[in-house]
């Protein structure tokens, strides 16, 4: 038992002796409770405690029902009952007495409302008995009575009885005392939550509460506004300036001092306002009026390290509303400072960082070492939050590392909720898969770790992905790999595998095991049959096994096995299982029918499904004529049942829809199951159901795009080289490459061990691309394109248009930790044919013409001029035809074509390019 309590019990008598003093009734009135508590403390076993409490409860029971018990004693008994309930003993007998006491008692015993609010909850039927009491107390002239009635009303009140007291509560909004107004506002808020329609007519009164001179009433009204605005942000845009003004006043310290909390002005109020502002400013220009105050809040948060709670809300707001670049940067910086803090709770601000990286994954780079540190933190919750952050910055390059980290976490996590959530995320990320093997392996781990907690849409979309693939070759490889992997899994110990996983295996083997030519269907059937014998297999899994067998149609010895199996299960008590067994039996005997019903190559094509089941109309009308009851849809049945006063709610919502029964539950009419559609269900229905039952978004992402960042090059330690002013020659570039150690990111401190750095570089790869040097970022530049990559080296380039020149910037990024020594870079212009030139010429829209002076140095003036230009601009001469000369200036993906012609002793130059400024710039160079 509690040491502290024991130690201090000696002090009790002296404490209790104070009872004799008038006014300190606080303890004396509880002396019986004191005895009880002391009694419990002295006991040594749980069993004794139970006996003591039972005795106590009997005593209480006896006394509460005795007519001689005074009100004061009753109240004391209630307190003891509350205590017993807290210890975990049922005291339901006292509920009615609590209500009775509240009803009869005068103002002195009104506090028994407390007992009521602790004993009963919202839905309790005894609450109806309280309505009258509340009604009476609301009309009382005694402030305290009104307060208590309002308190109990805001905690729980029967929904149906709201109209009875609503006018009274509403009236209290005009009460002269602020405490009453405040409680009335909160009571209306609760009414709004449980029955929004009932308080619709008083929305303008809420506005009055918002303008109340008492800050307490005003802040209470914010609860309502937060709700209203969440539901309909458009309707309250006009209030945005008011909220901003209020926040300004609060932040500016205009509230009375006692609203301060550790010298922070009304933090709760501030947070409410920030939440409201973020709702109002979401994707909206209204945000503009908020920038100033958000900036101010941020500034204060930066100064005072104790108000990180406001900072968090502030950052959340800044990242939700219409973005303003300066503010975003400030917010990111602020959060960064706090994440570095050694205080453990502030590490939790990683959560805020999650918002930041959602907007701009690059910002995670600044905090990579912190993130790595948190990833290895001994506190699982910090680890978990870090994974959440990593999840947001995953791209196709770091996916393997991040998924590995997540799976590691899953292996040690014991919490079901976390497991479900994380497994879902891994499954989502797995679609960034770098290759088939990894994808299948990862999904295998997902299925085995997720077990049967897995969200059903994960296996669904996995199977969907397998069945619908863009390229035939890749498709086949992936399926084949899956088949191989599953065969080897089944050959091992399959008894530990979760049911969901087994079902997936069955489906895949049924559909695709024929892809592996050296594999006899009989072998697969034998493996599958093993699953049937396992004790742990659920009947749902067995259905999947039978379906898979149906699709395999083996010959020879295995056929006998199939017969045995179908024989065994066709008398099963489970109707689904029985049906599958029947199907198996019939189809395994008739291979022609089997081929017709389950065509192998057809799984790609969508199947026309007559969802109205019109082909059954005849059957239905026959049955109706024979006296069958007409079909009612499930919701109608539900309604009828609930009308008959049976509470079926818990079942109504949580009907598990298993995959195997999908084909049936989705139909309009469950009256009859047709064998043929039931059969095709497992293979072909997947493609059909996609639109209704499966959650398929994300599938495309894997194979279609190259990752959500769509940028590949540049690790964080990318030295960069700028080829200044126009395009330099290849050799010059090569020389410059040695000057390379301009790292844009702070290098990790030397004591950080190598391992972490490696982890960092693998985690944050792919985030830093497009980080053009700061001095160039203001200029317009083309997309950074990857030129080539070899081992650890990526070379990419972009054009930057400066005022007077076009610059080709070449980035050389180093993916490894070793330093670059010397790199020679060769730049070659692409060769171009005359025909191509002609086609391009017509395609480009921006052109410039100008006459240039020719250079006369004794040779052919045309050739001499071109030579100079060629040298200076890296021109590539396509062809020279007698009078008209065609020259071409080609730069990577931004060509500029040049047409030169001798004309009256001048060189007429005509430039064309898809980029507007390029010809002008070039012309300038030519002069």
């Amino acid at each position, binding site marked *: 038992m*509690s040491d*502290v*309590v024991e*130690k*201090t019990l000696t*002090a009790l008598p*002296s*404490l209790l002796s104070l009872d004799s*003093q008038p*006014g300190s*009734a*606080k*303890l004396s009135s*509880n002396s019986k409770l*004191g005895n009880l508590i002391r009694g419990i403390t002295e006991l040594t076993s749980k069993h004794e405690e139970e006996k003591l409490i039972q005795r106590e409860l009997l005593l209480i029971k006896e006394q509460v029902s005795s007519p001689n018990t005074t009100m004061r004693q009753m109240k004391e008994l209630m*307190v003891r009952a*509350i205590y017993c309930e*807290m210890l*975990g003993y049922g005291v339901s007998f006292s509920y009615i007495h609590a209500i009775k006491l509240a009803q009869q008692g005068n103002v*002195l015993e009104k*506090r028994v409302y*407390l007992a009521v609010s*602790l004993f009963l*909850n919202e839905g309790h039927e005894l609450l109806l008995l309280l309505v009258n009491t509340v009604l009476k107390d609301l009309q009382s002239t005694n402030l*305290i009575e009104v*307060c208590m009635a309002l*308190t109990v009303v*805001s*905690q729980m009140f029967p929904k149906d009885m709201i109209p009875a007291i609503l006018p009274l509560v509403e009236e209290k909004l005009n009460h002269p005392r602020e*405490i009453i107004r405040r409680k009335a506002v*909160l009571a209306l*808020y*609760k009414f709004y*939550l449980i029955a929004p329609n009932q308080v619709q007519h008083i929305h303008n009164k809420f506005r009055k509460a918002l303008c109340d001179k008492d*800050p*307490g009433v005003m802040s209470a009204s914010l609860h309502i506004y937060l*709700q209203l605005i*969440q539901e*309909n942000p458009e309707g309250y845009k006009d209030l945005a300036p008011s909220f901003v003004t209020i926040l300004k006043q609060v932040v500016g310290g205009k509230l009375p001092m*006692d*609203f301060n*909390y*550790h010298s922070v002005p*009304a*933090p*709760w109020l501030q*947070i409410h306002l920030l939440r409201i502002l973020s709702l109002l400013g979401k994707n909206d220009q209204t945000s503009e009026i908020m920038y100033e105050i958000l900036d101010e809040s941020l500034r204060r948060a930066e100064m005072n390290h*104790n108000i990180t*709670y*406001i900072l*968090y*809300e502030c950052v959340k707001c800044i990242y939700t509303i219409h973005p303003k670049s300066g503010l975003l940067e400030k917010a990111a910086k602020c959060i960064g400072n706090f994440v570095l803090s050694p205080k453990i*709770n502030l590490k*939790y601000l990683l959560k805020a960082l999650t918002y930041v990286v959602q907007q701009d994954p690059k910002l995670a780079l600044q905090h990579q070492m912190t993130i790595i540190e948190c990833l290895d933190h*001994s*506190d699982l*919750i*910090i680890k978990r939050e870090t994974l959440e952050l990593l999840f947001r910055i995953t791209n196709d390059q770091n996916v393997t590392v991040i998924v590995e980290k997540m799976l590691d976490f899953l292996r040690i996590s014991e*919490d079901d*909720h976390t497991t479900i959530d994380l497994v879902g995320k891994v499954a989502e990320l797995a679609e960034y898969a770098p290759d088939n093997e990894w994808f299948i392996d990862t999904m295998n781990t997902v299925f085995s770790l997720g077990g049967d907690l897995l969200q059903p849409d994960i296996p669904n979309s996995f199977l969907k992905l397998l069945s619908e693939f863009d390229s035939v070759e890749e498709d086949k490889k992936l399926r084949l790999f899956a088949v191989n992997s599953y065969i080897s899994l089944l050959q091992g110990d399959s008894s530990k595998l979760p049911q969901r996983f087994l079902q997936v295996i069955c489906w895949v083997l049924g559909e695709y095991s024929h892809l592996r030519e050296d594999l006899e269907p009989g072998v697969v059937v034998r493996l599958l049959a093993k699953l049937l014998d396992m004790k742990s297999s659920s009947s749902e899994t067995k259905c999947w096994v039978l379906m898979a067998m149906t699709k395999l149609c083996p010959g020879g010895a295995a056929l006998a096995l199939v017969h045995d199996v179908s024989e065994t299960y066709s008398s099963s008590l489970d109707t689904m299982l029985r049906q599958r067994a029947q199907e198996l039996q019939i189809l395994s005997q008739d291979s022609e029918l089997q081929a017709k019903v389950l065509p192998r190559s057809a799984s790609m094509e969508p199947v026309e499904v007559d969802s109205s089941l019109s082909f059954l109309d005849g059957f239905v009308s026959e049955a109706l004529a024979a006296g069958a009851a007409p079909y009612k849809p499930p919701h109608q049945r539900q309604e009828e049942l609930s009308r008959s006063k049976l509470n079926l709610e818990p079942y109504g919502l949580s009907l598990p829809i298993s995959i195997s029964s999908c084909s049936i539950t989705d139909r309009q009419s469950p009256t009859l199951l047709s064998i043929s559609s039931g059969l095709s269900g497992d293979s072909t229905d997947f493609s059909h159901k996609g639109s209704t039952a499966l959650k398929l978004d994300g599938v495309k992402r894997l194979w279609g795009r190259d990752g959500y960042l769509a940028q590949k090059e540049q690790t964080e330690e990318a030295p960069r080289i700028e080829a200044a002013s126009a395009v330099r020659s290849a050799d010059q570039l090569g020389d410059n490459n040695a000057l390379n150690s301009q790292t844009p990111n702070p290098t990790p401190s030397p004591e950080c061990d190598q391992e972490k750095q490696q982890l960092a570089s693998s985690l944050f790869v792919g985030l830093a691309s497009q980080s053009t040097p700061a001095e160039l970022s203001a200029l317009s530049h083309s997309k950074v394109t990857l030129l080539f990559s070899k081992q650890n080296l990526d070379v990419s380039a972009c054009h930057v248009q400066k005022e007077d020149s076009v610059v080709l910037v070449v980035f050389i990024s180093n993916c490894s930790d070793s330093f670059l020594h010397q790199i020679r870079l060769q730049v070659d212009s692409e060769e171009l044919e005359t025909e191509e030139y002609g086609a391009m010429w017509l395609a480009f829209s921006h052109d410039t013409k100008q006459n240039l002076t020719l250079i006369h140095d004794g040779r052919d003036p045309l050739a001499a001029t071109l030579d100079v230009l060629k040298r200076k601009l890296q021109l590539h001469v396509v062809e020279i035809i007698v009078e008209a000369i065609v020259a071409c200036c080609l730069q990577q993906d931004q060509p500029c074509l040049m047409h030169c012609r001798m004309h009256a002793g001048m060189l007429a130059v005509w430039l064309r390019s898809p980029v507007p400024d390029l010809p002008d710039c070039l012309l300038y160079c030519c002069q």
Partner: protein
Amino acid sequence: MVEVRLLISSDGNTVQLFMMQFMLLFSRQGKLRLQKWYVPLSDKEKKKITRELVQTVLARKPKMCSFLEWRDLKIVYKRYASLYFCCAIEDQDNELITLEIIHRYVELLDKYFGSVCELDIIFNFEKAYFILDEFLLGGEAQETSKKNVLKAIEQADLLQEGILGKTPHNMSPALVTATPSEYKWFQVGVERRKLKRQQLPELYCPNEVRTF
């Protein structure tokens, strides 16, 4: 399972309530000292949740952070001397401000009881409930001004003890004119304060409070 109440907004988005789900106070030995549920749950569920949470929180090491993910909720807890204060909030809510709510509540208890300790809460748990009801109503912060909360409680106290309501005539004039807080000081007196300080070694000390 804890039911998270969601409303559906006009555009079909779910609306998040920033409401506290429940608050538990328990001792280092795992004894429940106070429980307040803001969502309707059956007794069985309440017991299960309490047992689970107490176990989880007590198993955490002091260096770990004050937050927990638990089912679909966030748990925010903090230890003050021998008592753990533990709140469940919704996923989207702000954990750091919940920590301050706990702290404000402790401050209120401290002010009311005068250097509060676990014993105060054990023997006067109904008072602790009153203070909580005045501070948080239905899971939302109701009144954040410390002065206002205590004023409301003390007024109700006076009424209940029959000072203002029934027997004003047999009180000394000084008492009648005294403000509620002065009255309390006068009555409970310095002795009790001293006594508690000496004999309860594990007193919650208000100065050590801000330990992030």
